[in-house]
């Protein structure tokens, strides 16, 4: 194979690599743009903002309704929707694995007509002082 053929072969190889790389990277970039656009629809932003406000409401409700340093038992601790209460109690109350060791029992009561799964989220304005957080109410019972 002569030098000329070798150079042509190399050019073809370069073209193949450039094409494959451009298409592969281009498709993935396009996918990212689609994912970003999907996250930025007004409906998506509204939904995520409402969910964040609800979570922050529960965070504040725990601090308003439970004394600092109290031991708490989260009702159904292995149940994902109520697990959030243990997470949001962190650095304020001390979650316990057993009800027997807890001073307070925390649970979430869904709004009328809703179940706890899927996690209810309504348009009701959050009221952390009364534990009412847009579709769920934090219930605190002293044991």
């Amino acid at each position, binding site marked *: 194979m002569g030098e000329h053929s070798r150079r042509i072969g190399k050019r073809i190889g370069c073209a193949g*690599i450039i094409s494959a*790389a451009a298409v*592969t990277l*281009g498709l993935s970039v396009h996918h990212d743009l689609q994912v970003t656009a999907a996250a930025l629809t007004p409906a998506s*932003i509204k939904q995520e903002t409402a969910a964040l406000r609800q979570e922050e409401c529960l965070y504040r409700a725990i601090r308003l309704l439970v004394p600092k340093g109290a031991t708490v038992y989260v009702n159904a601790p292995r149940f994902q929707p109520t697990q959030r209460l*243990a997470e949001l109690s*962190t650095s304020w109350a001390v*979650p316990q694995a057993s009800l027997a060791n807890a001073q307070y029992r925390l649970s979430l009561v869904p709004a009328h007509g809703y179940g706890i799964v899927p996690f209810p989220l309504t348009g009701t304005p959050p009221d952390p002082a009364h534990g009412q957080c847009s579709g769920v109410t934090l219930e605190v019972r002293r044991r």
Partner: protein
Amino acid sequence: MRALFVLVVGLGAPGLLPALAVARRSPVVVFLAPLIGALMAAVAAVIELGLGGSLPADYAAVAVTANLAVIAWWLAAGRSRPQWAGPAREWSVVTVVVVLSCLAVSLNALRSPGIGWDANSIWLTHAMMVYGGHHELLTGLQNVAYQFSNPDYPPLVPAAGALAFTFFGFANLHLAVDMTVLLSACALGVVGTGIAATGSRGHQPARIAAVAGAGAICLVGFAVGALAIVGYTDLLWAAAAVGAVIWGLVLPHSPQALGVAWICAAVASLTKNEGLTTALIILVLIALRYRPLSRPGPAARTWAERVAFVVLPALPGLCWAGLIRRIGVHDAFFRSASTESPLTRAGATIAGMAAHLAVAPVALAVLLAGCWFLRADRQRAQLANPAWLWIACLGSLVIIFATYVAGGLEIHSWLLNSVNRTTIFAQVLLYSEIAIWLVIAVEGAVSRADSEPFTRTDSERSRPQPPVRTTSDQLRR
């Protein structure tokens, strides 16, 4: 904006001097400084757990110590500091602008303030513990009621979140997510600037391709790690580990590249457990590539070099892993024995991982074509043998595969919940490999002959040539 303020002032400013000491005028400094700041915050969290104190006090102590050490080294090293070898300032500026612009496109999604499941149950919870001080952190991690939160996970992300809460309080819980996403973007920035550096010695078309590849990889990173935008940390460790591979196992030998690679490996090791195992693999490969293990010399010195090259960058991560076991915390994946046979688990794992590695055949084809047609061009660019990158990729996949097979959780639901995230490292690495071959192919297409040398860097052109000390000479000393 608040998270950006914490990133720049709280993490970037204390990390700037160490970043400049490591990477000099390279564009990577912009992205490396906040990562170094986060690294120092993580070390502070390790101290908080192991010795006591609070995050702000421990972080201040670590940051001041690190910066004083850098100043002392700077003064002591004087003129013997390695010279800067990189692109001209305008190319550095173009690289930074393109990479930042591409990152901004993905970061735009933060306008939708979603918080993912792990972001809540693991990272926000741990950030609150770190924020609470030594007692809160220790009792929180040991509390069985928090077992769901994987208490053994490393502290880099919680420390960054806790630092943000120290600045602005808990008025906005999404702040911790913002910090995680911005740090992931910085890690991708390090990968991007590494890819840009592969073309910095080439002709103008190759440089343009390299900068375009740098920008593309930032978007690709957020595409394969889509959950990163809601606070998952897998993209952070994966991108940091890819950064370690690019700077330590692809770019030409240099003290700067080695320093950047070590920092990236340390960031990966302090972000997630799989980041630690992957970082150890990468650090061993870097040690082999830079050959401290086979260099002649007294046995004591050889052993010291082994420690420096493999263990030292991973020391904070190893310290955390040791501490966490000492306080009686163990990971959730091996607590119970699996009821499924290893064969069933292996088959499901292979199928699960393969579904997320669709880029692998393309990367392999590009590798074969590149090795066939462009091996000489790659050598002239002084880039390392691609085998290093592929060994790092396969090594990480083997460890993750073994974890799935040996773990105790039900394999199908475990894969369903995690395999899209545990393969991010391999995916971003293979996309980076494709981008690097793209740069070499563009350079190969425009260079007139195989014998034509790569053009010297702009800063080398403007400098009197002899005597130029090669980086390999510096490393042999």
